[in-house]
């Protein structure tokens, strides 16, 4: 069995001090759902704007002076690092304040941080990408990467779930993804009569697929409970633990392994994570309050 290697990059940061952000301007705001919007950011510094690169699955720290800083995944195409997108759900203080910002506002950005989806070592394999709710955001760069190199992958299935139809992320893009020979299965937890698609929790959709355990790789991000059930369904289909990748989330203050908040057993989720293969997190995955 081949073990997939994970890629990481160090933060590209003009300042010698990793905690000091760069400035970036919000150039576009696109509403995705009642409490979710995608922000296009452009670094103020030309050099940084041109040099900036990231891997799918990595995140940035976004800073609002006087309010605070949050970890937000990059949701755009790694092949076009000049257009930097973040899809953000209003959840509390900082994300709430972000939601009030208008086009043209300046914020602080530092990154990219963290591990990436192993898109390269997944080449030649079938790929199932499972995103629940806002969890599809960190997966979208991987989807763009796969589309860009479609011939390098076998069967590709995207499973997108949300609570209600109106909460689905990026629904306008599903057809475009399908055009690249990707199966897109969409499901919601509940819906009214007007919804003609699937209703049922994300892990149930595994019954609609016949993955070949010998050559399937899974990337999943979403609520931890959802990921746990996705893992069970995947294991039941003989997909090896080493080929199931989850993206975990913990409180993060520094993103460079100093603040201690994101620890998950031996891992700092800002460095070794957020993307980890299931065999590495298994000992802790079901431990309560870990």
């Amino acid at each position: 069995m081949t073990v997939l290697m994970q890629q990481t990059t160090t933060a590209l940061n003009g300042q010698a001090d990793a905690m000091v952000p760069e400035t970036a301007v919000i150039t576009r705001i696109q509403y995705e759902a009642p409490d979710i919007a995608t922000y296009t950011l452009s670094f103020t510094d030309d050099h940084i704007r041109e040099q900036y690169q990231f891997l799918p699955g990595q995140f940035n720290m976004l800073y609002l002076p006087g309010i605070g800083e949050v970890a937000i995944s990059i949701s755009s195409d790694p092949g076009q690092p000049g257009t930097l997108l973040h899809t953000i759900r209003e959840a509390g203080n900082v994300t709430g304040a972000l939601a009030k910002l208008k086009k043209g506002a300046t914020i602080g950005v530092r990154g990219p941080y963290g591990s990436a989806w192993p898109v390269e070592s997944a080449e030649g394999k079938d790929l199932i990408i499972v995103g629940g709710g806002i969890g599809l955001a960190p997966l979208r760069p991987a989807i763009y990467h796969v589309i860009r190199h479609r011939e390098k992958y076998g069967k590709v299935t995207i499973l997108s779930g949300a609570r209600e139809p109106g909460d689905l992320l990026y629904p306008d893009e599903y057809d475009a993804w399908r055009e690249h020979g990707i199966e897109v299965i969409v499901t919601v937890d509940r819906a009214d009569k007007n919804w003609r698609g699937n209703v049922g929790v994300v892990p149930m959709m595994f019954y609609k697929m016949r993955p070949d355990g010998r050559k399937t790789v899974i990337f999943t991000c979403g609520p931890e409970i959802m990921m746990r059930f996705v893992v069970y369904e995947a294991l039941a289909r003989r997909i090896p633990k080493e080929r199931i990748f989850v993206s975990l989330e913990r409180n993060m203050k520094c993103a460079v392994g100093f603040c201690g908040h994101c620890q998950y057993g031996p891992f700092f989720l800002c460095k070794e994570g957020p993307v980890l293969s299931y065999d590495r997190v298994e000992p802790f995955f079901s431990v309560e309050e870990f």
Partner: protein
Amino acid sequence: MLADKLRQNPWFKVLKPAHFQKLVEIATEVTWSEGQTIFREGDQHDYLYLIVEGRVALEKYVPNQGQITILTLGENDLFGWSGVMPVIGTRTTGARAVQPTVAIGFDSRRLREISEADHDLGYFIFRRLTNVIAGRLSATRLQLLNMYSQSTE
């Protein structure tokens, strides 16, 4: 023709010919047009259905919210199991075709009868139903948790 359709189902492939034959005898093919109601919550049971193609929504009526879809089912999925379970007897949800749908219906009362008469076949049928119910239960629990309101990335 109906027997052929049944035989294609991965599930019936493993049946002994005699058992298979007994199931074919109580099976009928049904089709529903888009939007057609299949049964309502509280109806007396009649059939257990296996979907051949199409999509069916299981619905519950919630005052002030109308019919809420709680689960959709497609090819090779079973529904209408409550009719086969003696203690339940009535439909626990409503069912509606959201697409033109073809299914095979098994007479619930006769399913119970052939299970009683031949416990090997009965075991096969009830194991299958138990699996379906277990899967639904587990999914329902997850649905109940309302996981998207929890922390997500």
